[in-house]
């Protein structure tokens, strides 16, 4: 995989140092904001990628887990005063638990059927939260109580603190992915993503592995939901179950390099930084420019470079260090 010329340990250590030190070097808090977005959406992307990238189960409904995680911790905090740190874990567990019935339904379907059924699931959850006001504030939503600087309640005066929380989450997701990628489960995921029947033929319990990875992916996505709501101070069904979350999760993975450890991080970095810069350059009156550019990047990746940015980087590396064969696809080696 990527980064084999430089010893991976050194590469990761250097990256970690840069990531931790970066906020100190930022001229204004705005850049820290961009970094928070990069870390958060990378995290969601990495979580999605476990299911969508490695196992090729192209979910377009991850907002379901994001929203369930977000609502769990917010209900716990606002109604019962439970710290979002605990709520975050509870939200992850609720999301993972919800993945079981959702998986039981959607995994009966393959390919585009599966994708559409996941969209429908997330939509139904959103509509239910809109309809049943007794459940959690209905359409009006609620704001997070303003507690000032209260780290134990996941509220910080310093913006950098939010960044470190997001970064820690991202690190967790990367470590989880790395461990899975290097274990039997990684092989099983890629195998079933390639050909479910053939995987079954060599003893892969495809439904069970799908269930497990779906639960892990949902758990992580649920954590992201809590962090996000704490960060934007507000929750309503349209925010928590936003189709955009589902799309962004898939998009960053595909643009960065689907089924690779670092792909979602690279993809998010490109898309978010592009978007933030466009935003600050153009101010109001952007009028669709940004999403047009997103769409063009996505189409270019699909048509020209299905390996995404990871593919470009490995090519560049190979050209520098000799070799120079164009990577057409990500290959999983033993």
């Amino acid at each position: 995989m990527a980064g084999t010329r430089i010893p991976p340990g050194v590469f990761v250590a250097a990256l970690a140092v840069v990531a931790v030190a970066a906020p100190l070097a930022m001229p204004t808090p705005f850049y820290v904001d961009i970094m928070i977005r990069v870390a958060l959406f990378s995290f969601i992307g990495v979580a999605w990628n476990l299911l969508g990238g490695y196992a090729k189960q192209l979910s377009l409904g991850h907002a379901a887990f994001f929203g369930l995680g977000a609502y769990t911790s917010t209900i716990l905090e606002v109604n019962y005063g439970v710290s979002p740190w605990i709520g975050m874990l509870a939200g992850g567990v609720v999301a993972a638990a919800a993945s079981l019935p959702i998986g039981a339904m959607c995994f009966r379907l393959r390919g585009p059927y599966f994708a559409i059924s996941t969209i429908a699931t997330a939509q139904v959850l959103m509509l239910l939260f809109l309809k049943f006001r007794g459940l959690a504030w209905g359409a009006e939503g609620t704001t997070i109580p303003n507690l000032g600087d209260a780290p134990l309640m996941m509220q910080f005066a310093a913006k950098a603190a939010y960044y470190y929380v997001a970064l820690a989450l991202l690190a967790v997701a990367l470590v989880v992915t790395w461990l899975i990628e290097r274990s039997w489960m990684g092989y099983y995921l890629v195998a079933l993503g390639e050909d479910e029947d053939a995987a079954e033929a060599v003893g892969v319990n495809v439904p069970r592995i799908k269930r497990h990875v779906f639960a892990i992916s949902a758990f992580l996505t649920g954590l992201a939901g809590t962090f996000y709501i704490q960060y934007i101070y507000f929750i309503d069904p349209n925010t928590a179950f936003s189709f955009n979350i589902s799309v962004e999760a898939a998009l960053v993975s595909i643009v960065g390099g689907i089924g690779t450890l670092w792909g979602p991080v690279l993809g998010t970095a490109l898309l978010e930084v592009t978007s933030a810069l466009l935003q600050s350059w153009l101010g109001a009156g952007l009028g669709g420019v940004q999403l047009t550019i997103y769409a063009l990047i996505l189409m270019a990746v699909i048509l020209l470079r299905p390996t995404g940015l990871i593919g470009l980087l490995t090519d560049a590396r190979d050209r520098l260090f000799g070799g120079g064969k164009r990577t057409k696809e990500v290959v999983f080696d033993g």
Partner: protein
Amino acid sequence: MADALVVRDLSKRFGGLLAVQSFSFSVAENETMALIGPNGAGKTTSFHLITGYHRPDPGSSVVAFGRELVGLKPHDICAFGLARTFQVARPFGHMTVLANVMTGAFLRGRKLEAARERAREAIAFVGLEARAHTPARDLTTIDQRRLEMARALATEPRLLMFDEVMAGLNPSEIDQAVALIGKLSGRGLTIIIIEHVMRAIMAVASRIVVLDHGQKIAEGEPKEVMSDPDVIRAYLGSGYAAKPAAGEAPC
């Protein structure tokens, strides 16, 4: 000798079509049996039924090493010791040969290093060492079949089911394949092959079962089966000489 596999009244109806009809046979432990028949006779469907890819119609029974398999999932059946290949090889294209075979090896142990070791053995067994780090989709069709055999072997099966692993091989490759099957048999494995290459069948099989239109029409020693008039009629009627072309659709 004890029976490795006993199939009783295996039937499958797809819509109006009876693909397999009260098909019964048994294979003794360490026996090598060939399942033959014209295209569309129901051979591959039988494999699918035995290995759990299709659910047989009620009344069917498949007992392997004393255990009923009907109703089990393919992965359970594989874990129980029945491994198979597909008529059209289905390697995991974006994985290297080694990764492909390791995926099979994990069935008998989740440790990475041990699996890699077992996979290397299986790869060596089929003679693919030189290609261990080649992505499976870059292999020739023949090497893909070898890969599939290695992957099946890595699951450490007791019963192996090969679906036309020799189609398209040249004579010397067929000899290699025959030798390979002999070696596997030598290790005590039970083997069922679907095959059209008569030379190979005569060389490896101790017994032949013939299917036509989903029904067993003959069974016995290779020599006597091949002189059975029903068998000859079935083959001539469906243009045996024209083989091998595109076969039944996979699955």
